[in-house]
């Protein structure tokens, strides 16, 4: 029981780290908390749900990932980019409104019932494998490694880090900031898409499914320190294990309360996060 829970917690933590990495990438480049980030999970889940009726599983995963990435980039281009000059508060309120719009459109189109997508997992688990463990963990670890390499070594990654550390100096060196913002949104959309598909396989889909993960991933981001991507991954995995244990031993309501409680404590006691450098004036 204990080891089983630990394993599930680890898997959940890896998923959470994908979501919260996307969150912190967007935070770092636009300096906003993107409340509609977890709606990309929902978009991925629904497109996977629809496609899996018509195509085989690998094509439907691929196409729904593409849909999610395109949706994310379009969100940035058509909704956020015109609001950027109005300041961060306006941008955050916009992301909040946009998230509500997406959720209500999905609820009107597909009703707000929970749709199960666990058919595929059962088919595979009958042969003795779990889809999540078999595909998800290697793929996620691969993506985490690729992301690190991309940010550390490639020219685009170095420019992105330059934009993150000093936006105005990046403008001075004539870096194409708009294109890099799109790339960052694309990457975070891809990460959210992977997490969304695997969460929808195990938990089913409904229009507000992203909301819970928004709380968890935001908690992980803040606790880990928003600029420190390694810290975010470590805290996400720890938080994932903690959440699975509290869901198993207490109740599912307790896990949300606990994550928020830890978040509030950390925000009040150590506002820059556990691993974070000083970035906010206290």
């Amino acid at each position: 029981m204990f080891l089983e829970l630990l394993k599930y917690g680890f898997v959940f933590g890896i998923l959470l780290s994908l979501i919260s990495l996307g969150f912190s990438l967007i935070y770092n480049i636009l300096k906003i908390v993107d409340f509609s980030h977890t709606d990309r999970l929902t978009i991925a889940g629904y497109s996977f749900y629809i496609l899996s009726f018509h195509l085989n599983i690998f094509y439907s995963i691929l196409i729904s990932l593409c849909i999610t990435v395109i949706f994310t980039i379009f969100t940035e281009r058509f909704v956020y980019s015109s609001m950027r000059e109005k300041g961060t508060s306006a941008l955050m309120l916009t992301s909040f409104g946009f998230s509500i719009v997406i959720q209500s459109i999905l609820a009107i189109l597909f009703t707000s019932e929970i749709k199960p997508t666990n058919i595929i997992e059962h088919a595979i688990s009958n042969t003795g494998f779990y889809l999540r463990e078999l595909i998800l963990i290697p793929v996620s670890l691969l993506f985490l490694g690729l992301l690190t390499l991309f940010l550390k070594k490639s020219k685009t990654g170095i420019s992105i880090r330059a934009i993150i550390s000093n936006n105005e100096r990046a403008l001075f060196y004539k870096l194409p900031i708009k294109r890099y913002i799109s790339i960052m949104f694309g990457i975070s959309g891809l990460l959210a898409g992977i997490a969304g598909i695997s969460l929808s396989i195990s938990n089913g889909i409904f229009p507000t499914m992203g909301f819970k993960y928004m709380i968890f991933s935001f908690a992980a981001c803040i606790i880990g320190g928003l600029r420190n991507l390694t810290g975010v991954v470590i805290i996400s995995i720890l938080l994932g294990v903690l959440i699975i244990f509290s869901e198993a031993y207490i109740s599912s309501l307790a896990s949300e309360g606990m994550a928020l409680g830890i978040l509030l404590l950390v925000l009040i006691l150590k506002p820059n996060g556990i691993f974070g450098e000083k970035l906010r004036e206290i």
Partner: protein
Amino acid sequence: MELILSLVTKFIIYSIFLISLNNLMIGKSGYWAIGHICFFYIGAVVTGILSVIYHFSASLIYLTFFIAPLISSVIAFLLSVSTSRLKGDFFMFISISIAILCNVAAEYIAGPSGFSGINRPAGLTSDISILSVSIVFFILTIIYVKNFNRHPLNRIYSLTRTSEKSAMSFGINVLRNNVKIFILSSIIASISGILFAFYSTGTDPQRFSLNEAVILFALSIIGGIDSIKGSIIAAIFYVLVIYLLDSLFSGVSDIYATKIASLVFGLILILAIKYKPNGLFGKRKI
């Protein structure tokens, strides 16, 4: 007649809440308190707890007018102390997470469908009497806010909004002012929550969800920040839109009315931020 009565009562209750959100919380302190709806919920849920769980009698239930504002002012105090460390987006998230925590706690106490069958207090059993009490509170709130706008404290708040550091350099205790305004607005919001619980004799969690919080927030931006006229007109608009959608989709499905309402208000929020950032009657931009 009954229809007009219910619409007017809802309008009065929501405009009390919107004035506390728009003219006191956002207008004076300048913090984007999306989770302000939690005080509204606390008012309603405390009334539910006293009436349904502890079976307070019809005359004792008046105690809720002391207990609910007390609880919500304790929470508002904690929230306002956090402003000494967190600004801007982080405060927004703190406020949202306190609202979510309140929702979780209420779901734990009252169950997923909320309380139902709340006793109305003695002397306030009819709808008309609830309406008249609400109107009294409404007029008191408006008089209070109008007086507040003329008070020297209002200028102190407007200085603090522009620059906290310069306010501090004049020897203004910014934190104490924040605590004051947070507690005040939370008390008014919780009173509107109590009236709502007495009026509808139940606490439907749908009315206090985060979606609803964003809708009410959008309304205060549409009306114009720190404008009483704007809050009142936004409340009329909200009540009418909700009524129209409810009557349009009453036969079809429950989901459509609420979801189309949140779609409409979400779009209005985005468009208002983009094209009319100071709202209908407001002087300040977002």
